[in-house]
């Protein structure tokens, strides 16, 4: 269970949100919605612990994430605007490094399987820089199948994806929720039925 208590965040001295509280239970998909500049990304980054709120706390299973970082991070998968892949390394190198970094051991075959699943067959050894935006996004998304994380925090995961990619991602989101995982995601286009049931959380733009 991921819980935010009384989060306040201001950027450039403009308050994005104040006293924001929310609870996301296992087997739940939270769709965070709001106009540009409402603070969706800031909220997600606070939920991951990448940035700290001006006040308030984020709790995972009742424990403050700033107190027990490792416990939370073992169960967290965050995909931000930036893909987190180095352009001059191949998809395979990038992913195996990422797995080592996050302390996940996965047999090489699985790695190839996942790359096949996201449609990158034959592109495993090409430096990521030479891939298209959508393909780069797919490299980043393949992490979803590699790390057994309970919490997915996805910031605009559908950006640059084609119809097939969107479908794949939505199916996997539904699967994750049915397995008891929890997801918080933002997106500018509404989630389709493939993504399964979801709760909408609206974030307003404040002046």
């Amino acid at each position: 269970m991921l819980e935010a208590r009384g989060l306040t965040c201001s950027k450039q001295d403009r308050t994005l949100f104040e006293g924001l509280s929310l609870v996301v239970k296992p087997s739940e998909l939270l769709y965070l919605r709001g106009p540009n500049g409402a603070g969706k990304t800031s909220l997600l980054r606070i939920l991951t612990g990448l940035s700290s709120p001006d006040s308030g706390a984020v709790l995972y299973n009742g424990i403050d994430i700033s107190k027990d970082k490792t416990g939370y991070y073992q169960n967290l998968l965050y995909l931000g605007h930036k893909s987190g892949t180095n352009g001059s390394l191949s998809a395979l190198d990038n992913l195996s490094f990422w797995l080592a970094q996050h302390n996940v051991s996965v047999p090489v075959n699985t790695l190839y399987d996942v790359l096949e699943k996201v449609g990158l067959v034959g592109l495993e050894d090409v430096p990521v820089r030479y891939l298209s935006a959508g393909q780069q996004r797919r490299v980043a998304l393949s992490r979803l199948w590699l790390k057994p994380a309970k919490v997915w925090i996805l910031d605009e995961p559908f950006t640059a994806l084609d119809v097939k990619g969107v479908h794949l991602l939505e199916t996997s989101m539904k699967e994750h929720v049915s397995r008891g995982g929890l997801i918080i995601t933002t997106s500018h286009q509404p989630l389709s039925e493939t993504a399964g049931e979801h709760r909408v959380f609206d974030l307003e733009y404040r002046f």
Partner: protein
Amino acid sequence: MWKWLHPYAKTERAYQLCLTLQPWFWVGALVCLSIGTVWGLAFAPQDYQQGDSFRIIYIHVPSAILSMGTYVAMAIAALVGMVWQWRTAYMSMIAMAPIGAVMTFIALFTGAAWGKPMWGAWWVWDARLTSELILLFLYMGVIALYGAFEDKQQAGKAAGVMALVGVVNIPIIHYSVEWWNTLHQGATISKFDNPSIAPEMLWPLLINLLGFAFFIGAVTTARLRNEIVLRELHRPWVQALATEKVSKQTSGSPNVNLKEGS
């Protein structure tokens, strides 16, 4: 101490504190600076070697000491901000930075002006002057870094790190420059080293030192107030403050009468 200080982490309390302290600082600065400067420049005895030109120490020495002191104060504020996450600490750090830089500049300028009759040149690579110059660079770095960020909260944190790196470096720079100086011009005696000073010369110096400190305090509180108001513009208490002032101003002015008349 903690209980006493903690409320001032809130911007509103810090603003009130500045408001109460500021007039006292101005009075202190005015009194001390006028006594110290007049005493030092007009009544203190002449130096038997340097004549009247030594009197510049009444400006040079306080500004030099306080330029270092302000930097250390900035670093302390940065540390407080870092450890206890006080926004006001970062704000006061950045409020101090320009006035510290100005003090450094005054110290450099008066040092150069003093150097002209002593050494016959405006600028000599004297150890103290060189340290002051590097200190000015350090101040500029902190101010430039703060200015480079758009998010001022982030800017405060970043500038705070740099202030701390600088403060660790100040003694190293000071001693390295002094050592470098003895190495290269061992024969020159630093004119700034006054091993003993007559008490009638010392008193105005101390009073002026206090006066400069008050002055820095006054400017810092004024700048801190500005900074707080600017950053907290959307807070109700700032808005209340603004409307309160407006209503005070307008209550006695003809504008009100005009409105009533129309």
